[in-house]
């Protein structure tokens, strides 16, 4: 066992280092990923150790970053690209959706696109416009992509390894406000598959379904509810496409009540998909409608209002109470 305590940022850095070490075809590309080590320093020191040919500072052009990564993948490389912030992915959205997602199918499976697109996402860091969004549903809706988000250091470390080894394009959403949260990482023991959900807390009265930055909020909410005698289960989805609906169903059938929590706007969000599936799969096990807690249908607000916008402990607990009242 080699268990180390490290932040999510450090876990990602170590994981990227390992990926570069393990496979000479792995490349890292993005704006400022080299000398600076990325604006969040996730790639810190990697260019120094692996050179400018492996850790590539790119022109400031997101479509170009993803489009050339596709070309490199066609040549046999495995590029990991960094989009600097969530709101900056949209210039690359065309390349991701019309090209990266569909090229494998277009070639009837004869070519593979092992590209990882890393996106620091979500709010809570007091940033300016376009630096705090959660666009995961826009990517999860697109066939051909897989979308994941770790919530802790161990998952950050291992899910990145698994994403790099995947032959499918992976959109890797990094919960930026959790970058500095520390957790234990066992660098020798490989955990379960990339697209499996994990029960992070057992409970019997209600299930909170979350991923990425909201897992911590849900765990805290469950602990607070415990003090009021409520037993809350917390499921960390880890993967938003595909979603481990079997795990969701098992928990929903066990507790009979589900609240889905995410930062993204509720409207057309992943919570809608999860609620619909639960209704289809286990309607008669439900004691209450599946409720959703998330952002509002407004542009992400200025930082001084983001605490109102982001689901916090109180909003989650309020939804728990509403569900239990049915």
């Amino acid at each position, binding site marked *: 066992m080699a268990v180390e305590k490290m932040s999510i940022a450090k876990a990602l850095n170590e994981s990227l280092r390992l990926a570069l070490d393990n496979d000479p075809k792995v490349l890292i590309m993005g704006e400022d990923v080299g000398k600076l080590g990325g604006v969040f320093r996730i790639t810190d020191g990697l260019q120094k150790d692996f050179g400018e040919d492996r850790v590539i500072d790119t022109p400031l052009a997101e479509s170009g970053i993803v489009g050339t990564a596709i*070309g490199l993948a066609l040549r046999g490389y495995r590029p990991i690209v960094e989009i600097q912030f969530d709101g900056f992915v949209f210039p690359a959205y065309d390349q991701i959706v019309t090209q990266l997602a569909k090229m494998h*199918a277009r070639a009837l499976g*004869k070519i593979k696109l092992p590209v990882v697109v890393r996106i620091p996402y979500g709010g809570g860091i007091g940033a300016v416009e376009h630096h705090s969004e959660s666009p995961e549903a826009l990517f999860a809706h697109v066939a051909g992509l897989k979308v994941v988000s770790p919530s802790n250091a161990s998952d950050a470390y291992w899910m990145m390894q698994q994403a790099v080894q995947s032959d499918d394009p992976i959109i890797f959403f990094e919960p930026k406000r959790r970058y500095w949260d520390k957790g234990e990482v066992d660098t020798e023991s490989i955990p379960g598959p990339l697209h499996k959900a994990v029960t992070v807390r057992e409970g019997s009265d209600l299930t909170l379904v979350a991923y990425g930055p909201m897992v911590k909020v849900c765990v805290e909410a469950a602990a607070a509810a415990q003090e009021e005698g409520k037993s809350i289960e917390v499921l960390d989805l880890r993967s938003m496409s595909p979603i481990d609906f079997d795990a969701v169903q098992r928990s929903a059938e066990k507790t009979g009540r589900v609240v889905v929590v995410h930062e993204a706007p509720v409207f057309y969000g992943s919570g809608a998909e999860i609620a619909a599936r639960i209704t289809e799969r286990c309607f008669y096990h439900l004691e209450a409608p599946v409720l959703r807690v998330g952002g509002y249908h407004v542009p992400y607000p200025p930082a001084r209002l983001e605490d109102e916008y982001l689901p916090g402990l109180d909003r989650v607990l309020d939804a728990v109470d509403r569900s239990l009242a049915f």
Partner: protein
Amino acid sequence: MTVESTAAARKPRRASKRTSAAKKPQSAEPQLVQLLTPEGERVEHPDYSIDLSADELRGLYRDMVLTRRFDAEATALQRQGELGLWASLLGQEAAQIGSGRALRDDDYVFPTYREHGVAWCRGVDPTNLLGMFRGVNHGGWDPNSNNFHLYTIVIGSQTLHATGYAMGVAKDGADSAVIAYFGDGASSQGDVAESFTFSAVYNAPVVFFCQNNQWAISEPTERQTRVPLYQRAQGYGFPGVRVDGNDVLACLAVTRSALERARRGEGPTLVEAFTYRMGAHTTSDDPTKYRADEERAAWEAKDPILRLRAYLEKDKLADEAFFTALDEESETLGKRVREAVRAMPDPDPMALFEHGYADGNSLVDEERAQFAAYQASFADSAEEGK
């Protein structure tokens, strides 16, 4: 609505006025690299020379004739309802065959959706190109078997793929080159600008081959640019050259030179093949609505096939037997294409769920099982009806 904007709405907009009066920014006699005049005369160019055997010249002629025949057959098949759409290359044979024959086997091609002549040069069976237009697949061929990537429909996207691929070639230390095809309309796309930036910054061995066929559906080139397209390269730091796109010899010479430059590690080149799309953009538009008949007539006088034929005949490089045999070969090709398209089966319904993901996907597995059960339910009812 403000007073100003009301007035603006009533008055014809200045921009549209300007359009009707606009002169083409290109001069009437664009600075073309030309080695064969429209009359079929061989001319010399100080920077580009070419020395081909009679056999090679006949080969280029054959490529152009067969490509045109294939294209005509596909157009006819669309009119007969066998293809949902066709993007004709009529008029662009020299640009495609000239550049295509400049390539080495280990070079890699990133086409748009009109590069039927380039595909021909790469050894892609022409019937493979028809699957997407018939609606049985979105491409379907293995890009690595002929180093010919799938057709790309989103305008300009492939120029970035070509650039990335070329970056990979350079990383591998290989001396092959990459060529990206696109049109004058695509030159307005951000992806093309970004591919110029990336290729220049990383000195990627890529040739950008722009077929300026004068029209992006109904929009003329002056809607895309106020400077000749080849001049854009200068702003990115690499050479641009305009070649007579209806002159197969010039296209071959210029592309060969650009590819060699890339192989030597000197980076990208932009080649603008100044040509003309004689037909519609695709079978779904009607060029008579947006361009004058005289324009087409003027370009017909520069037909790439007729001019090479004039040269072959004048210089006695091909005899009547060659042309007769080629006519027969053309008809055989047409027949083969026609039969292959008609024999092309619709895909199995279960193919819906194939190839979305390389590593599989639990959601797709679930939907596949549901669809299979649904399909099977019809089989059951058919049984019951007996």
